């Protein structure tokens, strides 16, 4: 019973926190310099892990899909499976998971460390709102950077899929490109980008929320970083499924 109440309290606190963040985002003062610094840091930190995580997925889809499609002599159709799977599902989901793992946990750990050392209180004493100075840049940076990284990983995933299908798998290059351009629509791309925006925002919110809730010592900093990743991965997979199901129903 106590656990249920605690988790309900956490959900309520998260809702209030999100509303606070939205309000602080829209009203002055803004800390633009801090925002760009955070964004640049995120791009630098996430580029390599996100790229390395998504690129093999396209290759694996080609590798396994080719074997299955070949049973029906449909190996020319492979690119339509690859394109939709990468654009719609795996690139947005994996890029967001890696942003959560890399950026989310480090934002949570950073805010948590500031909290443990009393730097958050010091900011408040200097009448700099810690929400505006520390949390809001993190949320906006995650929301902007995740879709940007997704554009890159789309190409990486597609390219590695192409490498495993055309030069290594023996599919005809023209057929591969034709099915890709015929079956993959701009809607697939937009769905992926929309998902990334949603997931990125929630990574930033969760990191800020759990970081600000840290109390105690070093151990709780590690716990906040960890909880951020776990909570966002659950959220990403659940929302991903709901979005696919709704889109299938709507027929997009």
């Amino acid at each position: 019973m106590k656990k249920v109440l605690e988790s309900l309290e956490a959900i309520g606190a998260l809702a209030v926190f999100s509303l606070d963040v939205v309000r602080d985002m829209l009203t002055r003062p803004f800390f633009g310099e801090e925002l760009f610094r955070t964004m640049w840091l995120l791009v630098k930190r996430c580029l390599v892990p996100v790229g390395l995580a998504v690129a093999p997925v396209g290759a694996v889809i080609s590798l396994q899909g080719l074997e299955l499609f070949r049973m029906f002599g449909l190996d020319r159709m492979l690119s339509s499976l690859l394109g939709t799977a990468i654009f719609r599902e795996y690139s947005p989901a994996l890029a967001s998971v890696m942003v959560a793992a890399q950026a989310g946990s480090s934002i949570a750990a950073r805010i948590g460390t500031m909290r443990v050392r009393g730097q958050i209180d010091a900011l408040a004493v200097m009448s700099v709102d810690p929400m505006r100075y520390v949390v809001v840049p993190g949320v906006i940076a995650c929301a902007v950077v995740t879709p940007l990284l997704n554009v890159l990983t789309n190409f990486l995933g597609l390219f590695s899929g192409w490498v495993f299908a055309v030069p290594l798998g023996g599919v005809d290059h023209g057929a591969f490109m034709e099915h890709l351009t015929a079956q993959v629509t701009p809607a697939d791309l937009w769905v992926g980008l929309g998902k990334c925006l949603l997931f990125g925002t929630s990574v930033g919110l969760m990191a800020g929320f759990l970081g600000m809730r840290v109390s105690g010592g070093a151990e709780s900093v590690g716990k906040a970083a960890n909880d951020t990743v776990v909570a966002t991965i659950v959220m990403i997979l659940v929302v991903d499924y709901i979005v696919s199901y709704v889109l299938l129903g709507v027929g997009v």
Partner: protein
Amino acid sequence: MKTFFEFLIFARYAVAAQFSGFPDRRILAQQLYTAGVGSMALLTVLTIFAGLNLSVQSYSTFQRFGGQDFLGMFAGIGGVRELYPVMAAIICGARIGANLAAALANMKISEQVEALEVMSVDPMRHLVAPRLWAVTLALPLLCGYANVVGIAGSYYGAVHQLGLDGGTFVSQLEQFVHFSDLLVGVGKGLIFGWLVALVACFHGYRAAKKEGAEGVGIATNRAIVHGAVLCIVLNLVLSWLMYG
């Protein structure tokens, strides 16, 4: 680059400690419990949704050439060979690995590891070896469990949400998913578990006292990211070797 060589040196000592006799039973049991049973709830939720999504998402692609009935084969092979082992490894990295790294880093910065050394207890054998064994043993089991839950999710998605025939789905599974596929998936789980545990212990062990609370955060972060990236890349290499 320097970190990589440090990792190799650490791995050498850690593996030597891992195979230098039976680890402390009490710590092993406790670690197995936290790593294995502690991850089951999370893994259940995640694989159910991953399995559902595998059905729902690939449906439209197969529909284009009227191949909906082959969804069972696709969900079975794709899931058992690739998706569930990698999912289990990422969850393992995000939860178990991060916990290991945080715990070890915390011991390191509060000088508990040095205290063990002073008492002439080898921290590698006392701390690292049981944890390595626990995760290496737990992950293949979790992987097998994820297969069951994930396929159940795919079945529910295909039959109850997309309206495909249940019998066709099951017969597709029986016909195309071989025992060797299961073995490959679980074997991948074994390798990933060992790798994630090794990476997590390395990053936890590397935390220095002067870094303080920040060191714990850094160790956790690196354990998650390096573990996940290594597993995904290794998965491609293994699949390529086996099916390429």
